[in-house]
């Protein structure tokens, strides 16, 4: 753990982090675009239509990776928040808070695509099914975390308060994950296994892999960019920001 802390401390000087993020965010965005472009192309044009669901199952390629991201980002946010609370590392505060809007975005995508998918599949846009409900609650939790963060003036106090909330909210993650197991549900159960035997056809997997990796890369790019913005906002008025503003005209 100590080496992790040391690494954060080294990267943690605001100008260093700014340079790091400005340098790597475009790369992450760029590779994400490439990978996702392949994934979307393959998903839309290459994979054959499903015999039961027709073309509608193509929504899976954005729905499932987004759904996984929505939960993974929350977990990551809680981890950052815990590190920030325990060791008081400023960079982790910033990173945790940068996670929240991205997580909310992916949650929104999950809800919207699931809802669009549900219309042809279940004949309704929405149903109060446990998984759908818990995913909606996850969105509220994300909104709550960002809302709290922006409602407090002092950036560090705000980050710690919102981080505490994020940690408390972690109890929800297993509920989302296992909701389909605990309650009977309209929603699909566990069907896709990346390792080991999956219950879907092998030809459908490569674009899914691409989308999974693509969303991860996008997340990294977005995280760096958002953290950079927050970092700049906190350092507003410092000399190094001023020189940066002058040079980046």
């Amino acid at each position: 753990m100590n080496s992790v802390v040391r690494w954060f401390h080294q990267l943690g000087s605001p100008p260093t982090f700014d340079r790091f993020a400005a340098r790597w965010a475009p790369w992450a965005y760029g590779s994400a675009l490439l990978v996702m472009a392949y994934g979307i192309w393959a998903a839309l044009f290459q994979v054959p239509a499903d015999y039961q669901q027709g073309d509608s199952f193509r929504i899976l390629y954005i729905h499932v990776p987004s759904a996984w991201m929505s939960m993974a980002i929350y977990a990551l946010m809680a981890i950052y928040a815990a590190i920030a609370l325990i060791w008081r590392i400023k960079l982790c505060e910033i990173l945790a808070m940068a996670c929240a809007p991205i997580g909310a975005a992916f949650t929104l995508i999950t809800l919207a695509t699931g809802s669009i998918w549900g219309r042809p599949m279940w004949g309704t846009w929405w149903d109060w099914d446990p998984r759908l409900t818990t995913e909606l609650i996850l969105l509220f939790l994300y909104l709550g975390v960002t809302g709290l963060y922006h409602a407090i003036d002092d950036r560090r106090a705000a980050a710690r308060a919102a981080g505490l909330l994020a940690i408390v909210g972690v109890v929800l993650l297993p509920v989302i994950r296992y909701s389909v197991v605990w309650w009977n549900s309209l929603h699909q159960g566990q069907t896709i296994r990346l390792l080991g035997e999956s219950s879907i056809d092998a030809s459908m997997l490569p674009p899914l892999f691409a989308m999974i990796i693509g969303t991860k890369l996008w997340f990294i790019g977005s995280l760096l960019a958002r953290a950079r913005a927050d970092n700049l906002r906190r350092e507003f008025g410092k000399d190094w920001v001023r020189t940066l503003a002058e040079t980046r005209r």
Partner: protein
Amino acid sequence: MSTPTLFQAARALLARDLRLLWRRRGDALQPALFALLVIVLFALALGGEPQLLAKVAAGVLWVAALLSGLLALDTLFRGDAEDGSLEQWMLAPVPLAWLVLVRTLIHWATTALPLLLATPLLAELLQLPRAQLPVLLAALALGTPLLSLLGAIVAALTVGMRRSGILVALLALPLYVPVLVFGAGSVAAAAQGLDPTGGLLLLGAGLVLALVLAPLTAAAAIRIALNC
């Protein structure tokens, strides 16, 4: 510009409130979010039976709008009273009732209007039959400003109190009941294939009346509450 005109004062108030709203952007969405949460809670508490839900949908939406309006009521004058702004309003050369009216309308536009815009989505969540949506929207569009104006009176009465919390709710709800009865009633009428215009017209008439009388009453209430 020695003494400001009514219009200048209103503009200053509007500019201030919009700035405050911008500074706390999130707050503008909160009433809509709260209504959404009430609806979520309901749907969960009922255990998600679609037919049952569709039957109670209009009622739940009205109650949600009403409750979120009620919660937002506390922000109508409370903040201004606590930091002494209200004292300055009373000392201003424009009538207090005018400031109250402007403030109430701004408050409606920033709290109830977002909810109104979100209604189609919320209705979908509750599986409200499509045919009832226009009537529901019309009823809410007439009803929510009426609720805000009636609420202003209650907020004014309780503004001198330290923590009013639930007292506001208790005082406001009796005033809200007629609005609810006609508002939800017109939707119910539409659901049964009856003509909903009667209830809507009554709401409209109430709104016109309240636009004139409520600010005067609320201004008087503020003067009483601040012990003048």
